[in-house]
């Protein structure tokens, strides 16, 4: 456990030593802020309409602001994740520091978990930037905080799953750019997979649709924790980390 934290601390440190962390945070603050403004403006407009026309809409901040913002964030996440994971192993392999890690008295899975944990914390730190927007809602209204918390939990689970896959991809190459592009391709694919269900209802389409990470995020954004979604994300995390472990092992047999 101590070793995992040593590795994680080192990774976090190197994120914040380079411009990556700040760049991603700034980019995310901008985009998330834009979506937040859009959703609140829409919400306010509906509020005014309902006053003017006298017709009453269900005015629910959770439904009209928080949920769409969280959904949008989960899509932005797909673009952030490759940039977080691409250097994790590729850089160590390129510069030869992987030799230091692998010949130290520390287990492979400790290295992998440490790096994945650091990536997850980095992702959480980026998400936290948009939390400022949410706090504004609490200052001017009284949204329900529980569904929001569940939404964030969903974001972290989804992020964790894609980060695990990204960690694996980073371990298969010594070129960061290749790792980043490949991870982005996988993220994109896992996003659009559920589109097949809109035109096809056969069993295979359901299976393919089930693989989509965004399908499983939907319930979280509504504030619902479904065991099946949690299991989906957890198994994806496990798969990604397991593949990383195998690929780190194969490095020793091949290199």
């Amino acid at each position, binding site marked *: 456990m*101590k*070793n995992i934290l*040593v590795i994680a601390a*080192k990774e976090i*440190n*190197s994120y914040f*030593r*380079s411009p990556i962390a700040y760049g991603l945070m700034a980019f995310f603050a901008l985009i998330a802020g834009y979506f937040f403004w859009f959703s609140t403006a829409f919400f306010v407009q509906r509020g005014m309409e309902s006053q003017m026309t006298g017709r009453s809409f269900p005015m629910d901040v959770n439904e009209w602001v928080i949920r769409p913002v969280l959904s949008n964030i989960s899509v932005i996440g797909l673009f952030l994740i490759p940039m977080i994971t691409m250097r994790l192993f590729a850089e160590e392999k390129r*510069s*030869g*520091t*992987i*030799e*230091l*890690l*692998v*010949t*130290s*008295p*520390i*287990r492979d899975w400790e290295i992998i978990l440490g790096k994945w944990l650091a990536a997850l914390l980095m992702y959480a730190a980026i998400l936290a930037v948009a939390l400022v927007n949410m706090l504004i809602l609490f200052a001017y209204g009284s949204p329900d905080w529980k569904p929001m918390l569940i939404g964030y939990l969903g974001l972290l689970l989804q992020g964790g799953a894609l980060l695990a896959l990204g960690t694996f991809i980073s371990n298969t190459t010594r070129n960061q750019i290749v790792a980043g592009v490949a991870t982005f391709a996988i993220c994109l694919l896992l996003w659009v997979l559920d589109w097949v269900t809109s035109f096809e209802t056969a069993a295979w389409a359901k299976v393919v649709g089930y693989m989509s990470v965004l399908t499983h995020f939907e319930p979280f954004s509504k504030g619902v924790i479904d065991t099946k979604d949690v299991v989906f994300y957890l198994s994806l995390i496990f798969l990604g980390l397991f593949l990383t472990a195998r690929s780190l092992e194969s490095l*020793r*047999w*091949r*290199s």
Partner: protein
Amino acid sequence: MIKVEHLTKRYARNVAVNDISFEVEKGQIVGFLGPNGAGKTTTMRILTCFMPPSDGSAQVAGFDVIQSPMEVKRRVGYLPETPPLYPEMEVSEYLLFVGKLKGLGGNELKRRVDDVAGRCAVGDVRNKLISKLSKGYRQRVGLAQAILHNPEVLILDEPTSGLDPKQIIETRELIQQLSGDHTIILSTHILPEVEQICQKVIIIAQGKVVATDSVHNLTNRMRGSETVNVEVESRNGPLELTSVQQRLEQVAGVSRVLHKETRDSRLTFEVESLQGRVIRPEIARAVVESGWNLNELHTAAISLEEIFLQLTSVDAAKEAKQ
């Protein structure tokens, strides 16, 4: 301290290390000598548990590299060919990180970092970013990293490559200071380096050990007596072996004459000189004055370089024939 038996490492298309065996005793500095691509790095990577061998076994400090890699890793300090440095870290930060990786902590860690920073003369750059360091400093930080947890065995892959002459001397001195407490294997293709700091040499070529000897023996062969190969031929009729041998033995400065082979009317001898004597001119004169032809006259072993080249190229030639 280190025991390697029938070690073999096969890659997909080639054999990097082919059935090598050697032993290193505690406190020794052993030079691992060989041309590029001979299998030095592969052997070192196996000893540091970076990769497992395909065949054979290797033991470090009594622990097998396959059965108990953790125990081996705890006892080995390793400096790869390119020092494993993180450019975005400061030197002291890097050393603290490595120390934690090696299982050190608290006051002991701080004490060790201070100690190795002093020993490797990197104290004055402790707060500098590694990316800003010169090559010499990087190499020293790499060395500091390797000795940080006070390992019983140090494995250094070309520790002086790419340094300027002054830095090379400093690094050698540092390695020499480290011997005694540590058992050291260092790979190199610089021969004088081995001569200066190692007690034992393992020469490896094409994945095979071609010679293992103490530096003492090798340098004796180098500085001391000269071994000369002589081929003598008669101008008319067959030669009498004993008369030629006797004539050669009478030459001033010769300590021993060994008949090697007879081919037709040609005789080949290996003539050894006394310490520090040059005997080639005398032998030439003696042979010619006796009325024989001198077909060949060359020194068999004058330097470590020569031994090295002969061993490695003979092996290469054999390999090519196969």
